[in-house]
């Protein structure tokens, strides 16, 4: 088990290094000079040079990569070209919106998908099953921003239960913050829950057809007992994979939803940074997202081992 853990850890570190090189090089070849963008088209050549010097844009590629990567290691993400504040601070603020939003959506989608998937699988071929499958089909098909706007119309404008957008900050307490995140989280969770329900159902149906379920029934377990004690944990592996992918997506993929609800999250930050050629912010946010994705995959790998003893090698 320890060896499995260490192996995964090494692979995590290697992935991070590879990703940082890739991100750095990609932005290196992207056209557009941040200094020229900031100073406008009439800037003098020596002013530009001075600004480049100040922003650390001179020097060889290797020097610049090492200073950037070295900074990342100690939590120094550099200074934003446009905001003129440390990127770490900028990201820190935004993370406090995006991370809770992603977690909130993931919890919601799990809470919906597990019972729905299990229920549909246990009622296979009945009206209930077709109903769940139909609803999830719809859930996958509906664009989440459209659904978000619909919810704003109903719950914010007509019923006035929620505000239509914005984020009060956590200073006012936990509940108002969660309230502001509720509609966006539902909008994000809906398609994810639909996909997860379908995966849960089909994975569970696969395991229910396995020989060991028949063995369990021959021991005297009822259908329900066989499902809970034997099928569910076996069905979990594909579900965990999808959940890992979904969390990464929720963290990075909330750009549109954050725009619909005017949430000051990472998605909006990166969106604005790209249009302002604030490459250092883009670099850092992308790196952070990559880190999150890799970390989530690492967690999923550990979860596999927790679920499946065949992956824990003896000693």
């Amino acid at each position, binding site marked *: 088990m320890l060896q499995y853990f*260490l192996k995964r850890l090494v692979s995590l570190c290697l992935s991070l290094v590879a990703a940082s090189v890739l991100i750095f090089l990609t932005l290196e070849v992207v056209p557009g000079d941040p200094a020229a963008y900031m100073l406008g088209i009439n800037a003098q050549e020596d002013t530009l040079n001075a600004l480049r010097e100040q922003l650390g844009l001179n020097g060889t590629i290797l020097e610049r990569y090492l200073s950037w990567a070295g900074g990342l290691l100690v939590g120094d993400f550099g200074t934003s070209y446009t905001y003129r504040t440390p990127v770490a601070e900028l990201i820190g603020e935004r993370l406090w919106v995006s991370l809770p939003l992603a977690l909130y959506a993931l919890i919601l989608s799990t809470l919906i998908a597990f019972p729905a998937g299990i229920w549909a699988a246990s009622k296979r*071929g009945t009206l209930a099953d077709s109903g769940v499958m139909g609803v999830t089909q719809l859930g996958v098909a509906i664009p989440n921003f459209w659904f978000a706007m619909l919810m704003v119309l109903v719950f914010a404008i007509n019923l006035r239960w929620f505000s239509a957008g914005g984020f009060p900050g956590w200073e006012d307490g936990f509940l108002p913050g969660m309230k502001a995140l509720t509609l966006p989280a539902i909008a994000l969770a809906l398609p994810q829950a639909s996909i997860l329900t379908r995966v849960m159902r089909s994975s569970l149906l696969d395991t229910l057809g396995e020989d*060991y379920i*028949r*063995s369990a029934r021959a*021991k005297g*377990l009822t259908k329900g*007992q066989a499902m809970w*004690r*034997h099928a569910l944990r076996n069905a979990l592996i594909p579900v965990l994979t999808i959940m890992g992918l979904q969390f990464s997506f929720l963290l990075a993929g909330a750009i549109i939803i954050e725009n619909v609800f005017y949430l000051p999250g990472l998605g909006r930050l990166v969106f604005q940074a790209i249009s302002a050629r604030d490459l250092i912010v883009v670099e850092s946010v992308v790196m952070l997202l990559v880190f999150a994705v890799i970390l989530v995959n690492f967690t999923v790998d550990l979860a596999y081992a927790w679920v499946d003893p065949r992956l824990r090698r003896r000693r």
Partner: protein
Amino acid sequence: MSLLEIEGLSLEIHGEPILKDVSMQVEPGRVLGVIGESGSGKSMTAFGVLQLLPNGSQCRGCISLAGQDILTASEKDLCAMRGRDIGMVFQEPMTALNPLQTIGAQVAETILVHENVPKSEAFERAADALRRAELPPERFPLSRYPHELSGGQRQRVVIAMAIALRPKLLIADEPTTALDVTTQAQILDLLKRLVAGEGMGLMLISHDLAVVADLADDLVIMRSGEVVESGPAHGLFRNLQHPYSRALLEASGHVPERSGAAQDKALLKVRNVIREYQSHSHGWWGRTTHVRAVDNVSFEIRKGESLGLVGESGCGKSTLTRAILGLEEIQGGEILLGGTPVVSHHRVNRDVRRRMQVVFQDPYGSFNPRWRVDRLITEPFHLMDSPPFGAEREAAVAEALESVGLSAADSRKFIHEFSGGQRQRIAIARALIIKPDLIILDEAVSALDVSVRAQVLDLLAGLADRFGLTYLFISHDLSVVRSITERVLVMKSGQIVEEGPTDRVFDKPQHAYTKQLVAAAPVLPADVA
């Protein structure tokens, strides 16, 4: 009164009749053997007793266990009965256990489901059940997971699960079909002892007459959902009434007629072949160990000869086959076909490769279901420099299909339209189509029913005589090897331990391992054969 009484049982699944008027009895302390080919309804009868039938099943008739009617019992009563009064052992030990639970937990579950006892007591009794199944917890702790055990050991866990509560009736559905001969003999022995020691009734279901004949006190022979013959085992074999039972007995000991004789010239020469695998076992930077799957093997096959290769799973016979076909590179020695090496300069020699073909065990998995038969069987044409096309290709397809007893019109069909035996014929046609010298038959008849197997063996014998084919016949089934080969190699742990004329090797085995194999193989009572 019998322990289990099945009286006039009929079963329909979604309106389709599966069982028709089936009757049989199991007495306490006795073994009822149920024999039948695939589709005979023998397994469905067992599932009927447990009432674990597929959805849409409709039973009529009467099943009673110790006087209690099963067909009218509620689901709750049935759950209480399964595992406590009736234990069941299945065919596939590899998949019959939950891979995520320890063996102790799975055996203890039988007890916990039925009795309100503390967990620790259930585990103690589970240990006892495993001991009775001869898998002592001292050597195989309860904390083991199924993947840490071999097939035979897993089957013992399944048996322990079934006998944990000392049920009155044990149903074993092909319990040894997936196991090696020696393991099979041990498991059958164990079942025999359990019946004698605990007074259980055993319903032993098998397609293999020899397995059942060894063990059963009473016999039932089934065919397409009906019982064709039944009675006490002793004497029944000598006195079979129904033509089907006689045909079945005949087929299981079938020896195809051969007329062609082997020439003196060697076709395939295997010299000092070594195939090694690297395995990283200990730690990260730990030593790399080499595992020799094939260890210094040498033999020859003469042109026109049928050579058998027997051995248990893991002995290296499949690796050797792959090496001969050039699918795996060897680390030492050489393999020559007609004097030319199969692999030279790390590349498979196409000239040599097209002179040999292979037929595998699984008639279902070895075909692409989306291709028509003509495309399937002309696949080996890619080995030829100028494959035939147009009318010539059609003629080749027709000839290949007709030589295996199918018709040219079958070439436009898909593989799912054929039965298992027909599929194996198509696999043989695919091997024949480029007129090879050597055909490797890797467990080619192992998945077939006895009567179909007899037909395919006849076909193979006929083809060998007609086209002067040479066979390398690989199987774990000694009786099949005996019926079709002239010479046999016995393989164990990567080495050939014995070699000689088939009859001599099986009648007077020299090596201890061969003796063990021959002794373990189930045989029909001497008075029948």
